[in-house]
Structures are given as structure tokens and as C-alpha cells.
């Protein structure tokens, strides 16, 4: 069902946990639907220097979270904003169709975290 890469990121997820000093936090999803992702980012000079996640959800949701935090590290905010459901799925060697839309919230959560960071900057 899942690619080897999905299974790798699911069983050995990277960047798990809370980040107490996060510069931006984004949460997407809903436990009633079955998936909630919370992404934390640390930003320096418009670059994401660290990222962590906490996820409630299925194997795909956890793998996507792991992958998005991994990919985003070292990216500029503009680059990170270009990450999409499709590019995440591709990076994971594909996701089953039914998981594509409901468990692939990583890009949205990341974009919310970036937004949160930007909002905080404006204050």
C-alpha cells in the first residue's frame, strides 16, 4: 500500500516533538477527521533553520509530517511556500489516492507556520 519511503518516514520519523522556542507554529486538520499536524519552524535570515512536528494521524500523515520538516530545513521562506501536496507526495515516492487529500496536510500546516512567523514579525 505505502511506498518504502513512506514506511521509512513513518517508522523512523525525523524531527518529532515540540519546539519551545519556535518562531512560527502552524496547525492543520481536525481530530474528528482523523489527522492533525502541528509544524514548528525556526527562522533565521528568511531561511528555515529548524523544523519539528507533532502529528495525530495515520501512517501517511506521520510520514508527510516527517518529510515536510526534513525538506523545509535550509529552504528560504519563499521556497518553502512552494512546497505542495503534490511535491510532498512525490518526495515520498507517491501516496495512495485516498491518502492524497486527507492525510497530506503537511504543506498547509507548513504554510500556516510561515504565516504565523510573518504575523509575529509584523508585530
Amino acid at each position: 500500500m505505502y511506498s518504502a519511503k513512506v514506511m521509512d518516514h513513518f517508522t523512523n520519523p525525523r524531527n518529532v516533538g515540540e519546539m519551545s522556542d519556535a518562531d512560527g507554529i502552524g496547525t492543520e486538520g481536525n481530530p474528528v477527521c482523523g489527522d492533525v499536524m502541528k509544524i514548528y519552524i525556526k527562522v533565521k535570515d528568511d531561511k528555515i533553520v529548524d523544523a519539528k512536528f507533532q502529528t495525530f494521524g495515520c501512517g501517511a500523515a506521520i510520514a508527510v509530517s516527517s518529510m515536510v520538516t526534513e525538506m523545509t530545513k535550509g529552504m528560504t521562506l519563499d521556497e518553502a511556500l512552494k512546497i505542495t501536496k503534490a511535491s510532498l507526495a512525490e518526495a515520498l515516492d507517491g501516496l495512495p489516492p485516498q491518502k492524497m487529500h486527507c492525510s497530506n496536510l503537511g504543506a498547509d500546516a507548513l504554510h500556516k507556520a510561515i504565516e504565523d512567523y510573518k504575523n509575529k514579525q509584523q508585530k
Partner: protein
Amino acid sequence: MKTIYLDHVATNPLHPEVLDAMLPYFKEHYGNPLSVYESGVKAREAIEDARERTASLVNAKAKEIIFTASGAEANNFALKGIAYASQSKGKHIIISKIEHHSILNTARFLEKSGFAVTYLPVDKNGIVNPADVEKAIIKETILISIIHASPEIGTIQPIAEIARIAKQKGVIFHTDAVASVGNIPVDVQSLGVDMLTFAAHQFYGPKGAAALYVKEGIRIVPLIYGGIQEGGRRAGTENVPAIVGMGKAAELTKSDLQKRIDHVKPLRDKLIENTLKIDKVILTGHPENRLPNHASFVVEYIEGEAMMLLLAAKGIYAASGSACSSKALKASPVIISIGIPAHLAQGSVVFTLGEETTDDDINYFNETFPQVIKRLREISPFAKGWEGLEDSTCTARK
């Protein structure tokens, strides 16, 4: 890696003696059972022999058994067959909210075709109240169908009591016993049912063979029209090897049932006892009136499919009723029906034991499952509580 199969309610491995019984019907006796020459006659005799054995497992007469290809087919046949046969009497049907999809979705189809359907609720243990059945019966009621045991929460219904009410009121009563036959004694006489569905793959028989018991004298319209197979009630060239396999599996189950129950029940109890020691884990279904091999839980703060996958990675195969683990992407209506909130339903997980489950398997399980829960809770943003998010509704899927 050794694998521990704890998903016996999904399907079962074939008993080796069952496969041996089937093989000759793939090879030598391949004739069409309608044919008059030897290979056909052998096939016909084998089917009738299997019918006897299959009937005997549920204490029915051979002629009361109609073979089908699946439990789902038998359930569709039961509902539509009685609906079409009895519609001049009335167009009202009663089922419960915790029926299998093959009953639920057939009922919905019949609603679209002009039948009225009452969906009875269940209590927090998943039990249908016989008094509710009685109240729901009206003059137009032609059929009541209540599941015998739930594959998702293990609860066994008071079928004999409900059947008695149906009989008093002159309404035909069907029970879907796919999850019970093979796990507990099932006797159509003592239950007092008019129709009963059961499937071979639930008791170490083959996929592709199931049966509908239809009490002598009850008229049913075929679901599959055609030739005169199954007394004209279910057409199609018979799947001889599968039917033979069902007969053999029925015979073995009849003689081994008590032994099987005595084997799985203490192991299952040990599994439940240990799992309930974990914080924020709830047993779903009835604590006592449940299938002896069945344990089902909701685990807070984490999701069922993730549990299944992580368990599978450690060699333990199980099932879940979470939205993500269903291809329909909806949390199990059964879990919702017993009053579990939707966000908790996501943490549903089901373990069903079998003949080959060992004490070592359960020890390994009891070590492993708490680790799996711990690991996923470490990843979860909710591990310290639900943060009020549980009140939202899921619109993302609409």
C-alpha cells in the same frame, strides 16, 4: 520475523485438511454438477454432502441451506429476497444501526425502491434492546434483520429474545451470523431464527463460499436468476471446490468448537487485562457478552491506522475502525453508535485471536502494544489532552 495474526475477524487461513478436501474437485472431479456423467455426478454428490455438513454446523436441515459466494451476497439475498417476496404484505423493514455494510447498504437501496427502514439504536455496550424491536414493529413490517455478533466490537445480541418477538408478531427474522458462526455455538433452532447468514472464511474454510439458511416454508425471491442450481434459488455454476471446503470446515468446526473457545478465551482475557492497564484506553463493546476471541479498544490521542502499521512493523496484524483505515474514509458507524465521540473513534483498534495464537504471542503482544502506544503518543500533539478540538466537525472530507 515471526508474524502474529490477530485479525481473525477479517478472514482466516485455510485449515490444511480443508485444502486437502478441496483439491480433488479442482483436478479429477471438475465436471459441471448438472451433468449426468461421472465427473459431474461426483461434483453433485460432493455438493450435497457439503450441504449436510454445513447445515449440521448450525443445526439446520440440508435443504434449508443455500450456498452463496460471500456473506455479503447472502445478506443482500436475505434482505432483497424477502422484500420482493413479501412486498404485497407490507414494505417496512427493521435493522439495527450496527449492521455490517452489506445489510446497511442493501437497506438503503431498498429505501430508494420504496421500502421504509427503521434503524434501531444500541446502548453503550452495543446491545439492541428487544423492547425497541417490539415497539418498532408495525402492521407493514415484513422483515427484521439484526446482526448476531459485531466484528467491530464483539458484542453478541440477545437474538433468541428478538426472534421470539418477531415470531409472536409474525415477522420474518434474519440474523447476520458471519462473525459468530465458528466462534460460538450457533443453533438456528434454539435461536429461533428464520434466516441466518454465515461464511466459510470465518471458520478456516475458503473464501468464495458462504450460506444463507432459509427455514423450510419461507418464500424468497432469487438475487441471482438463471439455471436450477440451489433449487432454483441461486443460479450460477457452483464453485464446487469452495463448497466442498465449506462443508469440511463446518465439520471440523462442529467437532473442535469448544476446544477452540477454551483455547482463545483465556488468551484474549489476558490481552484485555493487560491493555486496560494502559492510561486512556477504553474497551469497546460488551465486557462479557462478546465473542470469546475478540478484544477491541479505543486508544486516546493516537490514530488506529498508525497503530496497525506500527504493530505490523513489529509482526502483529490487527484491524481498526478509524476513518483513515477505512477506504471509505469514515469512522466506523458502529463505534459512533455506541456513543464514542468521533475524535476518539479514530483510536479504534481490534484484535481477534485464533486457533494458532499462542501464549507466547500474547506475551509478546502485551510487551509490544504499550510501546507502540507510547511511541505514537510521543508524536501526537494531543498527548496531554484534546485541547477542545474534539468539538469540531469534519468538513474537510465533504
